[in-house]
């Protein structure tokens, strides 16, 4: 208790940081999860889409600012950049590569998506170089909020406090609604559960797969775009994100949308507590959480062994 009263601010900061970090990771993980559901391919290159989303958002934002665009425009630009990345790269990657790999050995699929990841990583260096890219206009424009925490007050950016978790929650709500209550969503679920049965029911599984992959790609890009104002973009940002979202998906259980949100929160908070309390464990903590969960529940926290739920 004495530790807590002395370090109250640290705990508060870790909570807030963890929340905003979890929001970005959730966007990536939930997309990865959707894509795995319909394609049954673990797409390592999903992390590149996060990085490219971040870079594209930053470039577009900096470009708009150089033309004298007002700072509030930064927010819709983040969204527009991710939709653009998803819509441009999603269908191309799905049709040219992943669709052909669908019935191959999982090892081969992993190798191919890993190769794609390396190619995209290089492409990214070619386009944006290796110098850090910074676009923090939306962060600055929204300013900071004083968050009361016990007897302390923690100044925290409004962007990380409201925008990141807000967009993540909205994404969660929209996805859950679409998958459960719309015909398109049901078609996605049907293809996820049983591709052949879905086709026999008249569902164009190839079309559903491409649509889902594009949405997943856009979600990864949105995760990157949303995180962009809070970090400086450097090569390698895609790699650390994909590994972390693997951990989130594995912890939650495949096919779980709400579960991915809980796991992202768990892992986001775990990581940020490590950053503030024991920084030497920052990298280890998310995987320690994953391993601990998988030891006791190999299907993940919310995974159902037989029937999947999405």
């Amino acid at each position, binding site marked *: 208790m004495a530790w807590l009263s002395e370090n109250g601010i640290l705990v508060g900061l870790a909570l807030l940081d963890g929340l905003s970090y979890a929001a970005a990771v959730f966007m990536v993980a939930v997309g990865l999860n959707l894509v795995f559901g319909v394609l049954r391919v673990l797409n390592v290159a999903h992390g590149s889409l996060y990085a490219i989303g971040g870079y594209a958002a930053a470039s577009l934002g900096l470009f708009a600012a150089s033309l004298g665009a007002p700072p509030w425009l930064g927010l819709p630009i983040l969204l527009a950049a991710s939709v653009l990345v998803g819509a441009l790269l999603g269908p191309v990657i799905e049709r040219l590569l992943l669709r052909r790999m669908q019935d191959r050995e999982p090892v081969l699929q992993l190798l191919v998506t890993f190769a794609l990841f390396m190619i995209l990583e290089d492409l990214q260096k070619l386009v944006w170089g290796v110098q850090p890219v910074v676009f923090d206009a939306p962060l600055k424009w929204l300013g900071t909020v004083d968050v009361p925490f016990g007897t302390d007050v923690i100044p925290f950016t409004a962007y990380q406090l409201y925008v990141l978790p807000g967009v993540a929650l909205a994404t969660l709500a929209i996805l859950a609604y679409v998958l459960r209550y719309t*015909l398109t969503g049901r078609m996605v679920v049907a293809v996820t559960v049983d591709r052949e049965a879905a*086709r026999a029911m*008249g569902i164009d599984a190839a079309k559903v797969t491409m649509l889902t992959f594009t949405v997943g790609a856009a979600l990864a890009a949105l995760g990157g775009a949303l995180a962009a104002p809070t970090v400086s973009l450097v090569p390698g940002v895609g790699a650390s994100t994909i590994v972390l979202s693997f951990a989130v998906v594995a912890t939650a259980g495949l096919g779980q949308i709400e579960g991915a949100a809980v796991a992202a929160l768990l892992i986001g908070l775990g990581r940020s507590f490590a950053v503030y309390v024991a920084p030497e464990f920052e990298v280890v903590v998310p995987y320690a959480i994953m391993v601990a969960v998988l030891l006791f529940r190999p299907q993940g926290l919310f995974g159902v062994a037989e029937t999947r*739920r*999405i």
Partner: protein
Amino acid sequence: MLRLEGAAVEIAGAPVLRGVSLQVPPGGRVALIGRNGAGKTTTLRALMGLLPLQAGRLVLDGQEAGEVPAHHRARLGIGYAPEERKLFGSFTVQDNLLLPAQVLSLPKAEVSRRLDAVYALLPELKDFAPRKAAGLSGGQGKMVALGRALMVGTRAVLLDEPFQGLAPALALRYAEALARLRAALPDVAILITESSPDLLRALVDTTIQIERGEISAA
């Protein structure tokens, strides 16, 4: 008329069907009997376009249908109840029934007309309509799979081993339902596979045997 002519199908490079020919006239009830691995399921999957024909043709009411993609076969009026039921567990029973009709974007009135017709034929489905399909027993699931096939099977209905694993009481009810179909759907061609002809004897007018991918007796 559903007609398969000289169908050859391979799975992973191994020939599974070697020139299978069969036909089911409108209103016809045909049993396809064979041991496990004889090619019954493969025949139905080929009819659904889920496996490509290496040779041979499929003709439905005079139209070539062998090249029609799998997801368009429901639109042609072919309903399919796979052996493993393949219901979507997170959907309710009613949503499972509705799915193929909704995917075809049939008018709402037509969808509810078909649903009522299915409930009239299989009244017990109405009792578990709001339940999640994952909670059904195997036998109940088979009934739902039959109802789902009937929702789009306006020309042909393919039932893969419907009696497999059914408790005797349920098997009896399923047989009664099939008997009712006869009167209710006089124009629909129905093809039923089974490993033993005994269960189907009273329900079909033609029995054909399949053995190692070939029709051995018709």
